[in-house]
């Protein structure tokens, strides 16, 4: 009896019990493989064995460096609803730049911590190159030893575990598909794969006995060849010729195909063995042979073949390294923008005129007062009126509106249209400058936006904790800034292209068609080709413009002029002169010091969307413009 009472008391006194109801298991990277400096996947499995739970799942990472003064944490949060017995899996893509600090995964409901796990990055499998294999076998393991200068890991994933968003592929260098259907991917997974490819990924489709999988719609739409069937061959003499390494003349089966687009690397257009095509900034590679079948595993030229397929850059990417070290911070477009007159307060001349009138009126009244002592009360009333009128004038027409807001938000974005992919890559340069300090939120137009880099400048300090909410849209919360502090961000995102550009070469030049599918007019559209500029003008939403361009015509611009300078001269006339500075820094950032002749070996289209393309104007207006650029494949 006493024991029963004691047990009842214990049950009553122990609070909650909610902690024990939820179990959580978090995993780092794609099967544990991580790539530092990139966004990596964190998969969280949650199991609720108790009552229904509504909470917030958060993944916290540490970024930046104390010595550079940009050390900060970013917590990626997502609301979770866990009915009784629910077992759910959530995937986050988070930036990981160093191994010193762990990644912290938490599940909270209100202020109560339901579960917490710290993932030690020192125990993760680090790599400089991660290759994802969508295969039934593990025959890609040899790739880990092929690249001597680049530490490579191969990860085998079932199609269901492929990332749902392109940011999940940020750490992935290539995806190899062999004997696996892409039709099983969800629509989100398929879009994510396309977006990643368009932004520079590499997809390799290799031959397999199940060749019909290469004829399925999703893969067929990407491949540079039309798959016709299988054929038996005696050795592969084309490989011998190309790599100068003997290939055993044993009977083997390869996929029979025909080139439809792209470039044959090995073989002929009618019997291609290795073909690649450009897909935006990425590549799709077709290998007709099954690399897992004999005699490939023992072939000496295998390393050279995979070097050709993956085209791994063995040089250090100094531009990226410098950017990560913060050495390019001072040349960030937002920093350049702050070197220009972006505010709109009265000039010395206006101020001088205003002060002269004020002092003159007062002097006049005082003079009249000395002449007419009997009317001094009237003149004193005049003095009061002058003070009140000038105070009211100073309050409104001479107000610097930018400085009299809680924050100045700038968004200058470069939108690169990735031809033939249907996607555009957006690189956003954002700045939040707080005059009086406070906490600010930024809402992004694209739900999957990657924050590449952030740093702060100014007299005031910036908060070290950021919260990125992934609820529907991507929102950065709690950007804390003291007075006179600036926080700068560089972001990347992918979006369906708002402008479709097609180009056809003809005998004397080019025929170009620009179709605007977006909601904003494309202004000042121009094509640069062979050192000449062809103006297309504005393209209204829903409209299309056709034009024939003849490079033989004389141009008013010298081909030796800086490209950015020429394009700035040809920009659409704007009433707001501050937009010119935005355009100038964007053009300088994109084209650098390239001269017109150097920058236009292949034709490209440039135009302007006179609105920010990365941020949503929410609590306070966002100032900015978007440079639209498209390199046109002939």
């Amino acid at each position, binding site marked *: 009896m006493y024991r029963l009472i004691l047990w009842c008391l214990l049950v009553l006194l122990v609070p909650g019990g909610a902690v024990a109801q939820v179990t959580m298991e978090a995993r780092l990277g794609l099967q544990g493989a991580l790539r530092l400096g990139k966004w990596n996947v964190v998969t969280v499995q949650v199991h609720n064995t108790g009552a229904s739970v509504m909470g917030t799942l958060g993944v916290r990472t540490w970024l930046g460096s104390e010595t550079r003064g940009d050390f900060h944490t970013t917590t990626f949060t997502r609301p979770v609803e866990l009915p009784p017995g629910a077992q759910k899996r959530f995937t986050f893509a988070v930036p990981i730049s160093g191994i010193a600090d762990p990644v912290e995964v938490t599940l909270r409901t209100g202020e109560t911590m339901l579960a917490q796990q710290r993932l030690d990055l020192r125990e993760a499998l680090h790599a400089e190159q991660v290759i994802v294999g969508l295969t039934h076998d593990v025959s890609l393991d040899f790739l880990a030893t092929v690249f001597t200068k680049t530490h490579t890991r191969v990860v085998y994933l079932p199609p269901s575990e492929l990332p749902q968003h392109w940011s999940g592929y940020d750490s992935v260098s290539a995806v190899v598909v062999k004997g696996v259907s892409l039709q099983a991917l969800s629509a989100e997974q398929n879009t994510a794969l396309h977006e990643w490819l368009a932004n520079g990924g590499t997809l390799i489709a290799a031959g397999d006995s199940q060749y019909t999988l290469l004829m399925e719609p999703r893969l067929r739409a990407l491949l540079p060849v039309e798959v016709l069937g299988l054929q038996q061959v005696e050795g592969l003499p084309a490989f011998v010729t190309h790599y100068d390494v003997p290939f055993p003349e044993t009977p083997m089966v390869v996929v029979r195909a025909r080139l439809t687009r792209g470039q044959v690397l090995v073989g002929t257009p009618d019997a291609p063995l290795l073909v690649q095509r450009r897909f935006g900034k990425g590549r799709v590679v077709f290998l007709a042979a099954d690399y897992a079948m004999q005699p490939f595993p023992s072939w000496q030229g295998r390393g050279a073949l995979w070097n050709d397929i993956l085209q791994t850059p063995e040089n250090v990417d100094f531009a990226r390294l410098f950017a990560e070290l913060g050495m390019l911070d001072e040349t960030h477009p937002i920093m350049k923008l*702050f070197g220009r007159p972006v505010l*709109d307060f009265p000039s*010395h001349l206006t*101020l001088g005129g205003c002060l002269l009138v004020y002092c003159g009126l*007062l002097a006049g009244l*005082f003079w009249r007062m000395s002449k007419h002592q009997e009317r001094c*009360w009237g003149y004193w009333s005049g003095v009061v009126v002058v003070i009140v009128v000038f105070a009211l004038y100073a309050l409104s027409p001479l107000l610097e509106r930018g400085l009299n807001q809680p924050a100045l938000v700038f968004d200058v974005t470069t939108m690169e249209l990735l031809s033939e992919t249907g996607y555009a890559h957006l690189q956003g340069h954002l700045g939040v400058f707080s005059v009086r300090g406070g906490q600010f939120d930024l809402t992004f137009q694209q739900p999957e936006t990657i924050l590449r880099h952030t740093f702060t400048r100014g*007299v005031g300090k910036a908060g070290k904790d950021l919260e990125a909410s992934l609820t529907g849209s991507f929102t950065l919360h709690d950007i804390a800034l003291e007075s006179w502090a600036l926080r700068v961000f560089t972001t990347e995102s992918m979006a369906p292209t708002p402008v479709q550009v097609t180009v056809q070469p003809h005998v004397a030049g080019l025929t170009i068609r620009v179709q605007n599918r977006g909601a904003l007019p494309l202004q000042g559209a121009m094509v640069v080709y062979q050192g000449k500029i062809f103006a297309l003008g504005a393209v209204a939403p829903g409209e299309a413009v056709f034009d024939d361009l003849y490079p033989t015509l004389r141009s008013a611009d010298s081909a030796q002029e800086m490209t950015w300078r020429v394009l700035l001269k040809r920009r659409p006339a704007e009433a707001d002169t501050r937009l010119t500075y935005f355009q100038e820094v964007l053009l300088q950032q994109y084209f650098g010091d390239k001269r017109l002749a150097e920058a236009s070996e292949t034709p490209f289209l440039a135009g302007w969307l006179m609105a920010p393309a990365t941020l949503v104007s929410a609590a306070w207006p966002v100032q900015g413009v978007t440079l639209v650029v498209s390199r046109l494949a002939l």
Partner: protein
Amino acid sequence: MVWIPFRRAWRNPIFHGGLVAFAQQPTYRSYSLNYIAALATVLLITWPKEGFVNLRDLPFTYNALGGTTLIILAYLNVSQGATRSLGSRYLSLHDWLVLAPVPAGQFLRGYLAASCLELLLFWGLALPLLILAAHVSGEPLLHLGIGMLIILVCAGSYRIVGVTLLTCFERDEFLLYILVRLLYVFFILGSGFVAPLYNPVLAFADASLWPHRLGSVTLLGLTLHGWAMTVVLHLLLGGGSFIIALARVRWVQRRGAARETREEGRGHG
């Protein structure tokens, strides 16, 4: 209720006389023009280069102008408060009290109110320029309001201090001259080093975007900003000075009355 003090001030004969004298005296008009020209020059010099945001330095214009206004007004109020502005230099406080037979409190209130007209004029003249400076420095209207309050309270308290000095040391002009200058140097300069909470210029900067160097003070469980403590201290200074001046006026009045009684008694005797 709000109008009662104004109505009483209007009916105060000392204030009434002072107001008429203020309206007709050319000295204030000349001072005003010099003062506004000085402030306009400071504003033009510190006005920032067109359109730029200087990330490395906080905006300077507002604090420069506010500081200059305080420095000028502090001197004017201490020194002018200690000057016999309400009559001939040969008239003493005792003579005044004999000529205007009003209670000591009424006399002092009227004298102070009339004396503060000059302060109000100068404070109002600076307002449009300070609004311009606040806008170009990104200061919100709240900061501007606090800044104007600091100027008014501090300069007003210095005026009371000046009047108190005048009532106490009216016969020793040299001592008065030295004391006025010593006190001014202490309030504007010395206090910044030894008692920063007394310094009006630091308080003005503290109430702006600039770093809050005065910190905060907890008083009776209430946490006050540094500038608020400066305002409180100046109110106490003004109040204390007023009490001293009132005691002195009463003493002079009583002593004068006793002397008259004695003289009358001697005359009858």
